[in-house]
């Protein structure tokens, strides 16, 4: 489900118009396949060293719940990367959305789904506002989202302090506790039940992956988003309303960040201001590892899932091996560095292929 604005990186994948590309790289160069192999190999190594790695309830369930949440965070970043922007406020937007959900449950007595809808609307609105400021003022997304991050940091803290006693909404609507702990083992089709390792909360991630995959591979709007990212001037001259596409990308990013905030709140139990504090690094890490270019125009939805899964598996494996705090972060830092280097190498390879083919 990797999509590129033609022709820049279309050599590595099927182009969006369905025609076969003139130069296909061999299948083993496919980055997502590489990631998948790496994840499976690492899981096997960790499993051999510590058989407890395959403990469904104590290891795999929390691991998959984390991956589910952080994949949505990575997708929130990926959407703005697709238009060549970035969202430094991804974590605060998650906190902002979660604040509305918590407020809805605590003060308005909303049901679980209605609170989620309110959360998504709030995230979408703040994202759209950010996109509008960027499109309207022409200021770099880096500056605007950084400013938005500070503004939301203050606003969210202020609202929690004003509205709650313990800086958190602790009211839990019916179904929240079940959503947190339920796995596919609780869902049965006749006599066959699912695996206890797969959390039900992953349904949101699945929907987000399917939705974004559809947007980028099947719709004109998705392709316009990618073209806006690949070359805004060319897109504008081609008749694409780039301003509106930028607002759309940021609105979607806000919506996905809010969804991640909701999932994180469900995961720990309450809606609080510190939700999303650590989202920024994983958002870039997951997206970039998965093959999304920082410069825009190329995204990979499945790649974001795989990139996030790789980081999750490494962290969980190191935890199981009892690696200390310092070494843990060194290993994670190395992964980030390698990811960014690989991104650069891929860009160069893509560029050379284009030059050779023209």
């Amino acid at each position, binding site marked *: 489900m990797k999509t590129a604005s033609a022709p820049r990186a279309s050599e590595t994948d099927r182009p969006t118009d*369905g025609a076969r590309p003139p130069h296909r790289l061999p299948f083993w160069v496919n980055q997502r396949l590489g990631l998948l192999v790496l994840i499976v190999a690492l899981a096997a190594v960790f499993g051999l060293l*510590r058989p*407890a*790695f395959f*403990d469904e309830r*104590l*290891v795999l*369930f*929390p*691991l998959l719940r*984390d991956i589910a*949440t952080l994949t949505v965070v990575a997708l929130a970043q990926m959407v703005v990367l697709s238009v060549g922007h970035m969202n430094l406020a991804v974590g605060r937007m998650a906190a902002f959305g979660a604040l509305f959900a918590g407020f809805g449950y605590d003060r308005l007595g909303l049901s679980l789904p209605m609170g989620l809808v309110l959360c998504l609307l709030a995230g979408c609105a703040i994202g759209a506002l950010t996109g509008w400021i960027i499109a309207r003022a022409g200021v770099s997304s880096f500056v605007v989202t950084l400013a938005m991050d500070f503004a939301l940091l203050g606003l969210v*803290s202020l609202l*929690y*302090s004003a509205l709650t*006693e*313990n*800086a*958190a909404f*602790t009211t839990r609507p019916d179904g929240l*506790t*079940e959503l*947190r*702990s*339920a796995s596919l*083992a*609780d*869902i*049965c*089709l006749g006599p066959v*039940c699912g695996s206890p390792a797969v959390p039900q909360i992953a*349904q949101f991630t699945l929907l987000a992956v*399917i939705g974004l995959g*559809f947007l980028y591979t*099947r*719709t004109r709007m998705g392709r316009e988003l990618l073209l806006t990212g690949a070359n805004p001037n060319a897109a504008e001259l081609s008749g694409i309303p780039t301003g509106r596409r930028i607002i759309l990308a940021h609105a979607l990013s806000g919506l996905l960040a809010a969804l991640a905030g909701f999932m*994180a709140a469900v*995961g*720990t*139990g*309450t809606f*609080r*201001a*510190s939700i999303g*504090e*650590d989202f920024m690094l994983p958002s870039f890490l997951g997206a970039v590892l998965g093959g999304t270019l920082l410069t825009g125009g190329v995204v990979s939805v499945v790649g974001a899932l795989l990139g996030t899964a790789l980081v999750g598996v490494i962290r*969980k494996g190191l*935890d*199981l091996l*009892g690696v*200390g*705090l310092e070494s*843990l972060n060194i290993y994670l830092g190395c992964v980030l560095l390698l990811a960014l280097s690989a991104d650069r190498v891929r860009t160069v390879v893509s560029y050379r292929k284009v030059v050779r083919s023209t």
Partner: protein
Amino acid sequence: MTQHRSVLTAAATFLVLVAASACTVKNSGDTGPAGNAPAKRGGGTAELADGSGVKIALVPGGAHPYFQPWKRAGADAKKRLGLGDVTFDETAEWDQQKQNDLLSTLAARGYNAFGIFGVSPTDINTTFADLKSQGFAVASLASCPAGGKNAADFCLSTDVELAAYKAARATIDAMGGQGRLVHLTGNNVDANTQRRIKGVKKAVQETGGKVTLLQTITDIDKDLQTAQKAVSDLIASKGPQIQGIVSTSYNPAVAAAEAVRESGSKAKVVAIDDDAKILSSVKNGSVSATVVQNPVGQADIGAWVLALLQSKQCTMKQPGVTIDSGSFVVTKKNVADYDDARKAKTAQLKKKFADEYLSCG
């Protein structure tokens, strides 16, 4: 072609959704084997008989100087009590989700009793309930869950509101009972910070207006640099108006002691904890007093009681009980021997556990 594919994808998505809604959902009301069982009354002893099957994990919210004594106290307890293992893991990085993951990983590694400082006081009861439902003994150490309810077996912690109250009282005494006071503290959106603010406000209110709270500065405990900047700004803008500074967090306390000494301000500073820097400031007089807590007692007693609970030798008479591990005002006068008072408190707490809180046999 593209339209045909779109229709196919839409149909597939629809089918997935229909299948999801057609599935039956099991009732997940079961709470597991180890709920809050009523405590038994027994005449047994609280001397641990066999702790070899107990593996204890002491898990702080993240790296912080406060928790370093836990490492030593845990290792000592392992040796003294003959426990299967005691580990100290500070990789939660102040993130509740990471701490939850870490706890489940430790459980998978075979640890079966947990002494936890929860990152988020409003969320930690969910984590405790999860661990309890899997049959593990759980202690909330150094911080209790917010909201007055505790899902762990017990909570052994500094009463932060009381400690902040004591610190504010000590500052007011040092100020001569009148003047303007500033409160420096940590993360505003943390339930413990809210408790500290309440404690300081209570002490100020008791003066009947003689002492006023000029400002409460929050969110400056991230690191020493942030605290230093905030304190130097405060001294520069309002220095002459301030007669007292009470800090209920570590970094602002160190920064306030330095700033007052360097600026020659007459403000009296009361700090928290017994870090070497703060103790030397108490000795040289730049800090009037410090309120120290009892981390060694928390880890020591925590490990012992967890071993008794997990080996099924004892049960809590009142599951979820909250116990103050003590806080002590240290001034120039008692800076040399305050640790004796702390050890005495620990011994007293052990006796109280054996006599009042535990039911053994």
